[in-house]
């Protein structure tokens, strides 16, 4: 509409406009980067576990007495767990997924020690682990009961392994991995017998090994401390937790059950910093945009009060209420736009600096666009109230005010 005279009037009253424009610019730069971080953290928190997480219970057992017999106790424990009503399946599991604790190892596709190494999360399990975690066999076959080695002589690569789909892709790309060899960095060879649907391994945030890169060994541990994964039937998890603790402790034999916990325990702990970051940044975004909105309301109110006579005169000369409201909407739109353009450049500069200083990924343009849109809409909503008050100024103000 009538942009040019509005712009020239605005340029003759720069001080307040510049302050609010700078405020819009800084807000844009901050919230664009905040949106990006929030989106990344949300994605992390909501990444699919791949297992039946809501029904999983983890148990840690610790042998301490001289009479403790590791293999016999494990066998008795698993028999008891599998027979408990409400338990779908149970298996030994050397570590808890998404707990930020576990072991990893390097794997090669060639015996040549100079060949590229792919790191993976190693999980020591028994043949029941697919049912216990709720995973699916994607290719090949499962471990057979007789292939499980309860007391391995060492930590070397066993002759048969199963791997996750992601790991299969890393090692062999789109070619079938079943039947292909893997090597440890000592040149020892194993054969991939099956590929398992992906679940998040020990370190959900890691890049190396990737969060879904897992190699499963059908071996028991060397130590006296061990863990089980128990999958409860829907709705039975919380009832089973104290029951499992009590029943396993009854088996005794110089060992103690150190904890029995739902999988949620680790999810809450592992992702607490991410949730806190999301809450903090969301609060920051709300506060900054509120202050900016107040700044816009304040400046517009000041302009309306300072121009009462001018507005009355415009009404006397034929402006409708809507024309006056539009005037302030356009004025604020121009102001916001100037702030937004400055802010977009600022956001890019800030993101570039962050990227080079902290190796963070660069800010995608979409987030700047999103923040710009949010600020523009918010700004127009904020100015609506003073603008409507301006529209209500009577034309008689033109003759009654000196």
């Amino acid at each position, binding site marked *: 509409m*009538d942009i040019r005279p509005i712009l020239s009037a605005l340029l003759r009253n720069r001080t307040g406009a510049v302050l609010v424009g700078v405020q819009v610019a800084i807000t844009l730069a901050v919230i664009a980067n905040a949106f990006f971080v929030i989106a990344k953290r949300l994605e992390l928190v909501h990444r699919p576990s791949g297992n039946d997480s809501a029904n999983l219970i983890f148990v840690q057992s610790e042998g301490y007495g001289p009479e403790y017999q590791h293999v016999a106790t494990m066998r008795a424990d698993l028999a008891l767990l599998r027979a408990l009503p409400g338990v779908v399946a149970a298996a030994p599991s050397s570590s808890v997924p998404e707990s930020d604790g576990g072991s990893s190892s390097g794997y090669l596709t060639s015996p040549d020690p100079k060949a590229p190494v792919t790191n993976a999360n190693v999980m020591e399990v028994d043949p029941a682990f697919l049912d216990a975690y709720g995973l699916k066999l994607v290719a090949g076959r499962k471990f057979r009961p007789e292939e499980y080695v309860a007391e391995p002589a060492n930590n070397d690569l066993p002759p048969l392994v199963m791997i996750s789909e992601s790991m299969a892709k890393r090692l062999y790309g789109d070619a079938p991995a079943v039947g292909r060899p893997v090597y440890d960095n000592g040149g020892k060879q194993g054969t991939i017998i099956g590929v398992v649907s992906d679940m998040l391994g020990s370190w959900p945030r890691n890049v190396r090994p990737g969060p879904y890169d897992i190699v499963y060994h059908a071996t028991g541990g060397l130590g006296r401390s061990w863990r089980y994964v128990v999958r409860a039937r829907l709705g039975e998890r919380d009832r089973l937790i104290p029951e499992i603790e009590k029943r396993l402790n009854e088996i005794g034999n110089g060992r103690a059950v150190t904890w029995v916990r739902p999988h949620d325990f680790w999810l809450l702990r592992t992702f607490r910093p991410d949730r806190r970051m999301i809450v903090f940044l969301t609060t920051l975004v709300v506060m900054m945009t509120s202050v900016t909105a107040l700044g816009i309301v304040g400046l517009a109110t000041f302009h309306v009060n300072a121009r009462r006579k001018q507005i009355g005169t415009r009404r006397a000369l*034929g402006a409708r209420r809507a024309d006056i409201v539009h005037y302030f909407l356009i004025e604020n739109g121009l102001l916001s736009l100037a702030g937004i353009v400055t802010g977009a450049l600022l956001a890019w500069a800030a993101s570039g600096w962050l990227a080079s200083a902290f190796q963070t990924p660069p800010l995608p343009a979409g987030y700047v666009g999103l923040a710009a849109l949010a600020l523009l809409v918010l700004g127009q909503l904020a100015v609506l109230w003073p603008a409507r008050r301006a529209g209500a100024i009577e034309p008689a103000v033109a003759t009654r005010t000196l």
Partner: protein
Amino acid sequence: MLDMQHISKVYRTELVETHALRDLNLTVAEGEFVAVTGPSGSGKTTFLNIAGLLESADGGHYRLDGVDVGSLGDDARARIRNQKIGFIFQGFNLIPDLDVFDNVDVPLRYRGFAARERRARIERALELVGLAARQRHLPSQLSGGQQQRVAIARAIAGEPRFLLADEPTGNLDSLMARQIMDLLGEINRSGTTIVLVTHDPELARRAHRNIHVMDGEVTDLKPFAPRPAGAPVAVA
């Protein structure tokens, strides 16, 4: 052109009720130049505001150009102000942030004229008031008389049928006041009906007809006298 019957206006504040107009009756014919005089507080500005649709009357009937304006909505009244009425204020009421050209442009933009037509009208109006060379000056860079001439250009650029002026010379010295009155006379001779409020009987004498307002009523209707200069007068 203008026909007011039994117009009343009351201002109410918490403490007092002011009867600014009581039973005011007045008709103005097309092409007339009417001067309204009266003591301070007698209701002259109130009358002018109602005549110019800046305010509504509380009682009575007002027909402007054959239209009963009392029943019109806010937007319709704004359109009439924009198209049929030109306003000249005692305080000039120029918009300080806009230059001369943009000030004259204000009502034309609300009228929705195309840019080319607006430019032509602005240049013609500024030519008439003798300020064609000052288009890009700000109001603060002009003298009072020049500012009022800009305001007159703004009032006539849309070629209204009806021009209302509330003490247009009240803030000017006598020389400038005379120039403004000459300008208004010229505009009237081209066919525009003018109602002028003034304190100055000297200036009032230059109109066709004088109306005296006292306590919100017309007290003294002087007869329609031929203008001294013998110039042609259009009467509808």
